[in-house]
């Protein structure tokens, strides 16, 4: 049988993914993370009497801390399976990817395990994050003069 014909058989038996539902759940949960972030900024700037800029750094650290803690406690992966990009795209996803890799590879030791594998998933985010930051920084310089 031709590979194209076989693909047709495969496609007739392919289940439809619930994309709209997934997107909706991700939208709501992602939005909720945003709301929690905003509340944290308000909380820190009001209670610690610091600028919004400083408070948002505190907020990020808080979210990273809790995402990593929940990963270590073993239930954040279940949340991710449910909320999908709602939890993977915010900073919580970045923290989760590092902590889960750290937990996984610590048994191979501090150098060849933890050290060389902790950025296994986060490495792409860092690399392309830095590259796009450079690119948009350049655009800003050219268009707005810095």
């Amino acid at each position, binding site marked *: 049988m031709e590979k194209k014909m076989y693909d047709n058989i495969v496609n007739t*038996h392919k*289940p439809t993914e619930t994309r709209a539902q997934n997107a909706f759940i991700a939208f709501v949960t992602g939005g909720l993370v945003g709301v929690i972030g905003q509340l944290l900024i308000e909380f820190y700037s009001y209670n610690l009497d610091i600028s919004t800029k400083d408070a948002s750094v505190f907020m990020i650290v808080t979210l990273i801390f809790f995402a990593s803690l929940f990963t270590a406690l073993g239930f954040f992966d279940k949340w991710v399976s449910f909320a999908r990009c709602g939890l993977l795209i915010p900073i919580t996803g970045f923290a989760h990817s590092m902590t889960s890799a750290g937990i996984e590879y610590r048994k191979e030791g501090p150098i060849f395990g933890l050290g060389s594998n902790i950025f296994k998933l986060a490495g792409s985010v860092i690399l392309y994050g830095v590259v796009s930051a450079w690119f948009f920084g350049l655009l800003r310089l050219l268009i707005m003069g810095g």
Partner: protein
Amino acid sequence: MTFKYNNVYINGASTVAGPYEAKGPLGNLFDKTYSDLYNGEKTWETAEVGLLKESMDIVLKKVNKTKEELDLIVAGDLLNQITSSSYAVEKFKVPFLGIYSACATSNEGVIIGATLIDSGKINNCLTATSSHNMSSEKQFRNPTEYGAPKPKTATFTATGGASLYLSNTKSNIKVESSTIGRVIDMGQTDPYHMGAVMAPGAADTIYRHLIDMNRKPSDYDLILTGDLGVYGKQILIDYMKNEYGIDISNNYDDCGTILYNLKDQKEVMAGGSGPVCSALVNYSHILKLLEQGKLKRVLLVVTGALFSPTFVYQKENILSIAHAISLEAIK
């Protein structure tokens, strides 16, 4: 390549399973189950070794043999360099052949063992296989705590170890014939749809077995594939009809859809997979039905996807293979 055997029998089998398999419909048929994925070990890898080793100990106890009486062990698993098998057999000090056919490993072992017994080179052989959900996830996909979303066609690697004791001493179950599979490429590239990858491999082996033995699907009480899952099963039925004009739908099932309760155990998606998936079903449920005489003749077609993460990232097609053995209940 189909072989007929005259004097190869299954004298005993053992199954050791993990928590997800214990919760499935065959849970109380397994010789031993663990509620913890680590089963008392420190790493996922040693946990898998432990399951395999334990299944070998149990089968030897069942057939009342010591390791000194064993002629050969043939075993394989999913981990890189089939380390689970090597580490599990070390303490037995028995001649060992390590094999790899991904999830089709169990039957490759039986074919090697049965052929050597039938030729008179050896008198008995222990064949075994294992897989572990977490060690496989770690090797093939993401860190186990990552929990990345998967499509509905994804399958779930079974956790456990399973062993079979074959010999030329007569028992109720005879290894009647076997067909060695060919590597098949149908242009599939999705590692989350192994059913689609492996169905053509299974079809090729079933077809060649039926032709070589001059049989029809109805000559078997049951034709069972290894781990095609819900969707792969439908694809195989459809493909067999289109390609060979053979309808297997009347007496066909798939171990991946039997091992778990697909309605309640949502985490397994389209069903079970991994070398031990088919072995857990065949060595507990199917052998028992043959023993009781409820099944007279079954064709076990275990299916394997041949690939590595490296080849998938390099955009190479995923290949498949299937090895078949035919078992008969005798009085």
